[in-house]
Structures are given as C-alpha cells and as structure tokens.
C-alpha cells in the first residue's frame, strides 16, 4: 500500500502575501509526519501557467498520483499534529472529508451561486465537505480531471468570479453529487477549520494545570481558515514556534 500527501504551495503575484509566508510551517509538520508514517509527500511550488489562480493546481493530482493507492490533498494552511494517527487507516475505497457547516450562510450562498452551473443537481448541506483536507482512494482521481475540464470550459468566468462563495470547494461538492459519490464524513479533528469560531485557540482557563490550546489537544489536522492572511501567518508561526520541539526525529 503506497499513500501520498499532496500539497500545493505557490507564491503568485495574484496574492498580496506569499503563500510560503505560512506554508513553511505547514510543510515542516507534514514532512515530519510523512517521514514518521512512511507516506510520500509531494509539494507543488511551480505554477501551471494555464491557470489564472494557483488553487487550480490542486486538480492536477489526477495525473500526479499515479502508482498510489490512497491520496490526501491538503491545503497549505494546514498543520498536522506530530503524533496524529494515520488518516489513511480511516477508509477503504471511500472519498473522505469533514462536513463544513461552520458558516451556513456562506455555504448556502456558495451553493446557490455555483448552482447556476449545475441546474439539475442538489447538494445535501449535511454531506457538503470542506475541500482543504481530502482523503480518498485512487479510484476517485477522475473527479479532479472532471473539475479541471469544468474549469477550462468556464475559465474566463471562474478567473473573474466575484460572486463570493470560495473557489473550488463548492465545485468539488457538485462534482461529487454529479458522480453519485456520497462522501464518508470523518470527525472534525481531521480538518479543524474555523478554529477561532469554535473558540479553540485558547486552553482551559479554569483548570490551569494544562494550558495547551484546545485545538492542539483535540485536533489532528489544524486548518487556519476564516481569518485574515496576516492572522494566518502569525498563528501558524506561533503554533510552530511553540510546538516545534515535538517534531523531533
């Protein structure tokens, strides 16, 4: 069994901040975890000039994961806990993700906005997954090719998209529905997004014996979303500086 973690981290002029300003901390953790768990890590730093935005490089996983049995695609604003269990043990041939209902207004708006491309499809809100951490069997790789084809078919509109609702996440969810793939929902610990909204950046301020922040204690993969880019850089840096001592060989 050969498994892969795939991360896209590209510094691109379309963003005011460099992706590497925060992805350096992401990569520190994933490199360590992959080494310790005998999982290959593929880091994409070179932009494919066919795309308007770097995010679409994620979809190239379909041609870059040849020879692997199970694949994890994780965003560059994630960090994995040093002793996280192995997510590849969670599934056999399913497509796994975490239900994203942190901001249901955003989700609803996004589904409606992108729904114009998929007039005959309906997304179940409680099967809607966050695209920042995905684990799946190789048999699902074709989904990403389909998304890429969809992107090229609608490139001008998608590159200039100003209706909100994110970029590829809702499109991925529509393609899952289109292919009758019901995702296997895994617990939020595997993609702990909206940490500030969950109020997990703090530790237990009443029982002060252990000041470890809740997200560290109860999460396996921390996803620094829903905050400003500067806050993301600062929080990922602080997290790395505080816990780097755990990532020792």
């Amino acid at each position, binding site marked *: 069994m050969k498994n892969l973690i795939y991360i896209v981290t590209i510094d691109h002029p379309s963003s005011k901040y460099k992706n590497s300003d925060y992805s350096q901390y992401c990569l520190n953790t994933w490199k360590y975890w992959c080494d310790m768990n005998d999982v290959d890590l593929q880091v994409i730093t070179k932009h494919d000039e066919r795309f308007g935005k770097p995010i679409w490089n994620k979809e190239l996983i379909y041609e870059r994961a040849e020879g692997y049995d199970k694949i994890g695609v994780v965003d560059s604003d994630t960090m994995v806990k040093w002793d996280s269990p192995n997510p590849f043990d969670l599934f056999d041939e399913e497509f796994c993700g975490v239900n994203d209902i*942190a901001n*249901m*207004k955003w989700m*609803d708006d996004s589904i409606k906005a992108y729904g114009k491309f998929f007039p005959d499809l309906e997304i179940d*809100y409680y099967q809607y997954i966050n695209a920042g951490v995905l684990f799946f069997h190789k048999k699902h790789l074709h989904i990403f090719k389909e998304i890429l084809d969809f992107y090229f078919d609608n490139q001008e509109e998608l590159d200039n998209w100003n209706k909100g609702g994110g970029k590829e996440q809702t499109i991925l969810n529509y393609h899952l529905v289109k292919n009758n793939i019901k995702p296997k929902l895994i*617990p939020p610990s595997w993609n702990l997004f909206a940490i500030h909204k969950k109020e997990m950046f*703090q530790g*237990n*301020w*009443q029982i002060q014996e252990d000041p470890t922040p809740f997200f560290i204690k109860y999460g396996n993969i921390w996803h620094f979303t829903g905050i400003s880019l500067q806050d993301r850089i600062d929080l990922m840096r602080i997290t790395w500086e505080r816990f780097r001592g755990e990532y020792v060989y």
Partner: protein
Amino acid sequence: MSTNIVFTVNIKNPDKPNRSTPYDLSIKSWKDWASKNDCEVFVLDQWIYEEMNPNWHKLLVFDLLESSDIEYDQILIVDSDTIIHPNAPNVFETTDNKFCAVHNDGSYDWVCRSLETYSKYVFKDYMFDVWEYFNSGFMIVNGKHKDLFRDIRNFYLTNSNLLKQIQENFGVGTDQPIINFFVQKNNVDLKLLPYKWNMQDMFRKEILTPDFLFTKLGWVYHFNAIPENPDSSKTVYWMNKTYKFFHISFYRDSND
C-alpha cells in the same frame, strides 16, 4: 397500544409568568408536528423534586410515563426552547432503535471545559472523544435506556451538592455533561444525527437572520447560545417570530 412520545419539561416560574409564553409556542409546534406523525406530546409542567432544577426533570421521563399508564415505544426528549418545522419528517424512523442525539457544535471552549471539569472533579479522569459530545436538548431514547436514566437520576440525587458546586464555580453545564458521561461510560450505542435535527447556536453559524434562512436548512431550531440575551429576551423574540412565520406560511394554509 404503544406509541412514540415527545416529552418536554415546561415548569413555569410563578415570578416570571410571561417568560413561559414562547415555550408554550414550542409545545404548540411539537403538538402540530406530532399530530401529523402519529405520536403524542407529554408535557411536564409541575415540580417533582423541589430541589431539582427543571432541566434535570427530563431524567424522570420513564417514571412519569409509566405512572401515567402511557405505553411508549420511543421517546424524544426535547428542550422547550425549540421549535420544529411543521413539515419535518418523522425522526423516529431514523433511529435504528438506538440512543440518538446531535453533536454539540458550537462553543468548544465551553464543551472542552465542560468535559475536562467533569472528568477531573466527578468522573475520576475518565475522558471520551469530544467529537461525540452531544447536546441534551434533543435526545431519542427507548425502553432499553430506562436503567441508564434511573442511574443518572440516582447519581444526581446522591451527588447534588457536588454538582451544584461545580455549576456555581465553573458554569459548564448541568444535566448535559452528566448524561454524556453516563452514555459513554456505559457504552450505550449512540447514534449521532445530523445538525438539522438540533440546530443549536444558530447565531454562530450566521443563520439566525430576519430572512429565516435557518428554516430552510433543517428541522429543529434550538434558540440557545444567543449572545447578549438578557433574561432570554432574544430567545423569546426569535421563538415568537419563528412560530408566527410558520403560522402564516403553513398552519394557516392547512387550516383553511
């Protein structure tokens, strides 16, 4: 003949008689739904134990039904600050005859402190998965869980001083953490239902909005955890508005 029961506690506070009005709307909504889904609503509106807060009274559900000679199949125990959509499907058909509840998805600062506090001071460092911690405002049980509820009630009666102290010092929940710990410690077969069956903390999810977006996203609306909510005034406001919204949209049509 046994039937499915919706059980709710609505013990009125004589000092604040108006406070109960929206909770009456909750009961009305559940009665409307129950009439369409072949079940009965049982409301406890009197104190049984004077020293026991109303929220603990839900633990008496089995005794109350049996002393009232009511035969039951499954029981949905629901808080009185909820309203159900009039067209919600029959949730009893989704249970697989298990203990069902909805994960408490809201402030994890509160959830984690609740878990850690009760673990340390009450349950001798026993811990369980935070992602299985459920909100006790919506639970479905059946006869298999009668002993569980008896044990929790006895535990409360034996340890009420300790539990009151914890509540005074830490403020991290009353019946909810205890029920969670008992379910986990006793390896009760727990089925977590989707959020749509107990839509807690809707403000945090940015759906408690004047366009009633929440009514399009699920079935049971739990008007808790609303910020800046002195004397539950916003709970009252939203329950009134929601009931009226449904009354205009659904009940009136069905009564014509």
